[in-house]
């Protein structure tokens, strides 16, 4: 039901954006025009077309799809989960290059103020979780401040680096964050304080040797020890459940399966 509704709506949207001549949505030449889909009208026409041109050039050059979509909301389409929303658009619109639908799609829903990245095919590998985090650390401030052109432009800049690197056979790795001297100061104080307290407590303890003997273990007749009663009775058991923290490794990409059964990578958040 959801799927059918989505197809209808997206087709309708396409007709609106691309004019009434959008008969075959799958044709390569027409795809080019909707890789930058500003359905929420966040960009001026010239901004949108400049981004459009850059994206098309990159896709042609590297053979990896790149799509940016802005939506007014996702609730109207019956979605509450931005990940499913992004995946379904990707799958329904048959984005992606080649048999494995290689490509990366960035979706924002304005009313929900949520964003999602959905990757597919080789792009899952190319955009690792760490890379996505790194890219979003630059994009998100622009999204939050409402500078959408800069946000998408930054996204495209970074995507170009990822695609160029992948083309050379190297999976892009985000540069390390610079060492924060604050961490060093905090570690200095915490480690120093803990060790100094333990050490001086140890030194103070050396001075004390007079204390009461708590027990009489030295005087136990070893042959007389007799533990005649030994009873262990099970009373009850209780089980607690805790969500396991998701594994995130810098080199890897986490994946999930979309409603169409295709495997997607990606990340999401709010701004």
């Amino acid at each position, binding site marked *: 039901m959801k799927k059918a509704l989505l197809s209808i709506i997206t087709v309708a949207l396409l007709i609106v954006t691309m004019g009434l001549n959008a008969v075959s949505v799958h044709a390569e030449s027409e795809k080019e025009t909707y890789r930058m889909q500003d359905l929420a009208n966040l960009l001026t026409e010239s901004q949108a077309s400049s981004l459009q041109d850059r994206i098309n050039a990159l896709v042609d050059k590297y053979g990896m799809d790149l799509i940016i979509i802005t939506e007014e909301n996702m609730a109207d389409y019956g979605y509450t989960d931005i990940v499913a929303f992004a995946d379904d658009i990707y799958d329904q619109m048959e984005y992606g290059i080649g048999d494995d639908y290689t490509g990366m799609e960035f979706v924002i829903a304005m009313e929900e103020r949520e964003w999602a990245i959905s990757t597919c095919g080789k792009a899952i590998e190319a955009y690792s979780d760490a890379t996505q985090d790194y890219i979003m650390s630059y994009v998100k401030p622009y999204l939050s401040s409402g500078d959408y052109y800069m946000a998408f432009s930054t996204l495209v800049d970074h995507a170009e680096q990822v695609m160029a690197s992948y083309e050379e056979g190297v999976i892009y790795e985000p540069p390390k964050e610079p060492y924060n001297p604050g961490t060093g100061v905090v570690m200095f104080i915490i480690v120093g304080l803990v060790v100094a307290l333990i*050490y001086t407590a140890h*030194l103070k303890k050396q*001075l004390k*040797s007079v204390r009461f003997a708590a027990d009489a273990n030295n005087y136990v*007749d070893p042959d007389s020890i007799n533990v005649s*009663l030994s009873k*262990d009775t099970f009373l009850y058991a209780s089980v607690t459940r805790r969500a396991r923290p998701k594994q995130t490794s810098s080199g890897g990409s986490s994946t999930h399966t979309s409603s169409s059964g295709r495997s997607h990578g990606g990340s999401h958040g709010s701004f």
Partner: protein
Amino acid sequence: MSTLQEYKCPCCGGKVEFDTTLQKCKCPFCDTEYEMEALKAYDEDLQNDTEDDTNWNIGDKEEWNLDEETGLRSYVCKSCGGEIIAEETTGATSCPYCGNPVIMMEQFKGLLKPDLVIPFKLDKKAAKAKLLEHYKGKKLLPKTFRDENHLDEIKGVYVPFWLFNTEASGIVRYKATKLRCWSSGDYDYTETSVYSVVRGGDVKFNNIPIDGSERMADDLMESIEPFDYSEAVDFQTAYLSGFLADKYDVSDEETIKRADERAKRSLEEIFRDTVTEYSTVTPEASSIKVEGADAKYALLPVWILNTTYNGTNYTFAMNGQTGKFVGDLPMDKGLKNKYFALSFAIAGIIGAALSYLIWLI
């Protein structure tokens, strides 16, 4: 006053003392050594002597009453005739005038006779050496305490102890938990199983020593335990020659409570050691009774060392048999701050360097 005893050398008339190395009595003047067995026989003869002497001891009672209030007694030294003032409980001391060792026989007669004694095995020199060893490795000990160390007093004391043979029996109930962890899907599961664990039984104790001297700090005496009773011998006053000795002034009935406490704790520990394979164990109820206490009266060898530093008295004690040395020491606050700052700086730098290394990886 007649009850003062000196062991005179049958050879030269000098005063014989117990020698810790030889474990015999030895005359310091002519180097003659005496077997303890020989002195025991001599001892018995001497006791007969004192009984004979009681008749002319007329002034004794009067003097006793006079000194009762102060808790002091006076004796007359048999060697030089000087008056020896000693505490009511003193059993052996030395004459302040001629230095001869004297033993107050009446303190160890009849019901007051100790059942056993562990003779001193370590002498004054060993005690002094152990004190220096005790200072070693104590980083916060004030330098001046170590350097300007003048011992006010060093004395070998036979301290009266009550040795209790007891039997503890009872039941302890614990609440114990076992944890089992596993993962399934996106969740970690923890199963806590709660058990009621009961342990019961009994155990015997041999010779739990409780100090029977009011003067000796109980924690100090408990700190130098244990003594090796296999070296204990039947009491003879000759062992006291050359040392100080006190008779008990805390009765066995008064001290038995402490022995019971310790026995009870030990039985609890024995039970606790059998409660294994649990993640947590909390005692919930304990019912232990200690009974069948019979007490032996023993004199155990202790070296007591006293020193004064900055107006405070510091007392050390050494087990005169095993050499176990205890005594709290003063702390140099300046040194403490120095070590605090130093360890803070070193550990802090290592901590900061580690955080940088972790960032590099």
